[in-house]
C-alpha cells in the first residue's frame, strides 16, 4: 500500500511522533521512580532506626540487650528480656486460643453452616477487625479483666503445683487477659485466610471422601484440613505478626511492669508497650534503648511475616488438580478484606 510512509519522513505512519510518545514515557518512568522511591524510603527508615538504636547496642551488645533480664530506667540498665518474653507469651497465648476458634469458624462457614447464615457470620467476624485497638484495650481493662479476675484466681489456686500457671496472685492487668484480647483481635485475619483457603479445596476430594462413606467430620479431617494445612499455618503466622506488633491494647492490659512476670496471671511488659509507655519521657540512652526495642520488634515481625508468606504461597501449590495461585490470591483478598 502507498500509505506506508509519510511523504518526506522516515517514520512509519503507524508510529507516533516523539512528542506524542512523551506522555507514555513520562508515565512509565514516573511510576517506576515512584515504586523505586518506596524501596529507598523503607531502607532509609531502617538505617535511621539502626542509627538511633546504636548507642544502646554499643553499650549492652546486641545479644546482651535482647537477652539480659534487667530493664531498669533509673539505673540506666536496659536488658530487654522481660519485654521480649512478655511479647512472646502474650502472642503465643493469642495463637493458642485464637487459631483453633478461627479455624473452627472457617470450617463451619465453608462446610457445615446452612447457606443462609454463611454471609452474616462472615460479616460479623470481619467486624471484629474494624474495632480499633484502643477500644479493645478500654473494653478489656474495664469489663473483661475485672470479670475474669476471680476465675483466674480460682485457677491459680487449684493449679498451684503447676509452674508458671499456679501459685501467684491474679492481678487485673495480666498476661492471660492480654493474650485473650489479642486472640480476639487476630481472629478475623486467621479466620478469613482459613476460609478462603478452604474454599479452594476441590469438590472432587470432598465428594471422594463422602463417596467412600466418610461422615461429615471425617470428610473435613481427611479431605479439607490436610489440603489447607499450609494455608492455615500461614494465616496463623500472619496473626502472630499482628499480635507481636500490637501496641495500645497490650499497653493498657499487660500492666506495664518492667519485670519478667512470674506467672500467667501476673503483670508484665512487652516490646511495643514499653515504647508507647516510656518514649514520651525518654532521654539519651533510655531513648536509644527504646529505639533498639523497636528494632528488635521490627526484625521479629519481619521474620514471622516472612515465614507466613512462604507458607501462604506454598498453600497455592500442594496438589496438582487445582488452578495455580488460587490460595495465594485468596489469602491476598482476605488480607485486603480485613484491612491488613
Amino acid at each position, binding site marked *: 500500500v502507498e500509505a506506508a510512509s509519510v511523504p518526506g519522513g522516515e517514520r512509519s505512519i503507524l508510529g507516533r511522533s516523539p512528542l506524542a510518545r512523551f506522555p507514555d514515557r513520562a508515565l512509565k518512568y514516573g511510576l517506576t521512580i515512584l515504586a523505586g522511591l518506596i524501596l529507598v524510603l523503607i531502607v532509609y527508615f531502617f538505617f535511621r532506626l539502626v542509627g538511633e538504636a546504636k548507642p544502646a547496642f554499643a553499650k549492652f551488645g546486641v545479644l546482651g540487650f535482647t537477652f539480659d533480664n534487667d530493664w531498669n530506667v533509673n539505673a540506666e540498665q536496659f536488658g530487654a528480656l522481660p519485654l521480649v518474653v512478655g511479647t512472646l507469651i502474650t502472642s503465643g497465648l493469642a495463637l493458642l486460643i485464637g487459631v483453633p476458634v478461627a479455624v473452627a469458624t472457617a470450617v463451619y462457614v465453608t462446610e457445615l453452616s446452612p447457606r443462609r447464615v454463611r454471609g452474616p457470620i462472615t460479616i*460479623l467476624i470481619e467486624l471484629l477487625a474494624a474495632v480499633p485497638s484502643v477500644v479493645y484495650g478500654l473494653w478489656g481493662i474495664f469489663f473483661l479483666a475485672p470479670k475474669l479476675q476471680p476465675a483466674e484466681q480460682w485457677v491459680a489456686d487449684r493449679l498451684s503445683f503447676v509452674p508458671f500457671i499456679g501459685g501467684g496472685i491474679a492481678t487485673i492487668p495480666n498476661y492471660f487477659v492480654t493474650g485473650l484480647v489479642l486472640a480476639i483481635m487476630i481472629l478475623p485475619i486467621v479466620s478469613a485466610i482459613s476460609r478462603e483457603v478452604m474454599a479452594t479445596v476441590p469438590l472432587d476430594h470432598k465428594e471422594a471422601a463422602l463417596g467412600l462413606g466418610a461422615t461429615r467430620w471425617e470428610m473435613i479431617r481427611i479431605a479439607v484440613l490436610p489440603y489447607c494445612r499450609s494455608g492455615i499455618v500461614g494465616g496463623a503466622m500472619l496473626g502472630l505478626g499482628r499480635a507481636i506488633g500490637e501496641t495500645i491494647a497490650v499497653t493498657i492490659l499487660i500492666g506495664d511492669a518492667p519485670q519478667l512476670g512470674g506467672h500467667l496471671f501476673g503483670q508484665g511488659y512487652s516490646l511495643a508497650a514499653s515504647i508507647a509507655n516510656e518514649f514520651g519521657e525518654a532521654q539519651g540512652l533510655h531513648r536509644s534503648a527504646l529505639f533498639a526495642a523497636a528494632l528488635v520488634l521490627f526484625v521479629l515481625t519481619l521474620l514471622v511475616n516472612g515465614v507466613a508468606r512462604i507458607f501462604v504461597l506454598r498453600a497455592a501449590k500442594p496438589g496438582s488438580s487445582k488452578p495455580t495461585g488460587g490460595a495465594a490470591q485468596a489469602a491476598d483478598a482476605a488480607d485486603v478484606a480485613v484491612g491488613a
Partner: protein
Amino acid sequence: MNAQTPSSEKLARFNVSPARQRRDRIARGTILAATVLALIPLLLIVYYLLSKGLSSWSPSFFTTDPTGNTFFKSSSIGGIKSAIFGTIEMVALASVISVPIGVGVAVWLVEYGKNSWFAQLVRFFIDVLTGVPSIVFGLFIYIVLIVGTGSSFAGYKGALALSLLMLPVVTRSAEVILLLVPGALRESALALGAPRWRVIVSIVLPTALPGMVTGVLLAVARAAGETAPLLFTAAAAKATSFNLGGFMNSLPVQIYSDVTSPTTAVVNRAWGAALTLVVMILLLNLIARLIARRSRLA
C-alpha cells in the same frame, strides 16, 4: 422392588457405626460451639459501647473541647470536638498523600512491572510495610521529622505516619482489583490506536474505580482507629485546631489518655469517644461494602 428386599443385616453394613456417628456429632457440635464463641466478644463489645457510650453522648459532648476541669464534680469536663476534628483532618491528609502514591505503585506493578525482578522486589517491600507494627511507623516519622529537623510534634507529621500505614493496604487492594480488569479491554483500546497512558487513564482506572474505592475506604477506616503512630508525632493538644502544623488531638489518642484517668467522668468520656470512633469506622466499612457489591469486578 419393595422395601423389604434388603435384609436388615445387609442394611446394617451400610450404616455408620454408632461410635463414628457419635464422633461426628461431637466434632460438629464443637465446631458450632467455637463459632458461637467467636461471635460473643463482638456482642459484648457492642453492648458495652452502647450502654456506656450512649449515656455520655449529649449535644455538648460533640461541641466542646476536652479542656474542662476534672477536679470539681459540678464543672463540665468537656467533650471531644477537637478529637473528632483532629482525626478527620489527619486522616484526610493521610489519604491525600497515600492514595495517589499507592494507586500509582499498583498501576506500575500491574501495567509495567508485572513479574520482573524489580516488581517482585517492590511487592516484597510492600509486604514488609504491611507487617510493620504501627508504633514503629510513628518512630520512623519521629526520627526523620522530629529528631531530624529539631522541631516538635505536628498534625501533618501524624498524618504522614498514618499515610505510611495506609500505603501498603491501598497498594495491595488496588493491585488485586487492577489485575481483575480484563486484558481484552486493554487490547481493544490499544488496537484502536490509544497510547498506553490513555489506556490506563481512560480504560483501566475507571473500570477498577469502584473496587479501588472499597480498598481505600478500608484503609481509611484502619488509619482512623490507630493510636500508636500518633502518640509521638501529633501529640495531643486539647483545643480544636485547624492548623496541621501544630499539635493536634485525635479520637484514639483522646481515648488512650482518658482510659488511664482515675476520674469516672473522664473514663465515661472515653466510652463516649470510643462509641463515636466505632460508629465512624463502621460507617466507612458499610460504605466500602456497598460499593464493593456494586462493583462490576470484585
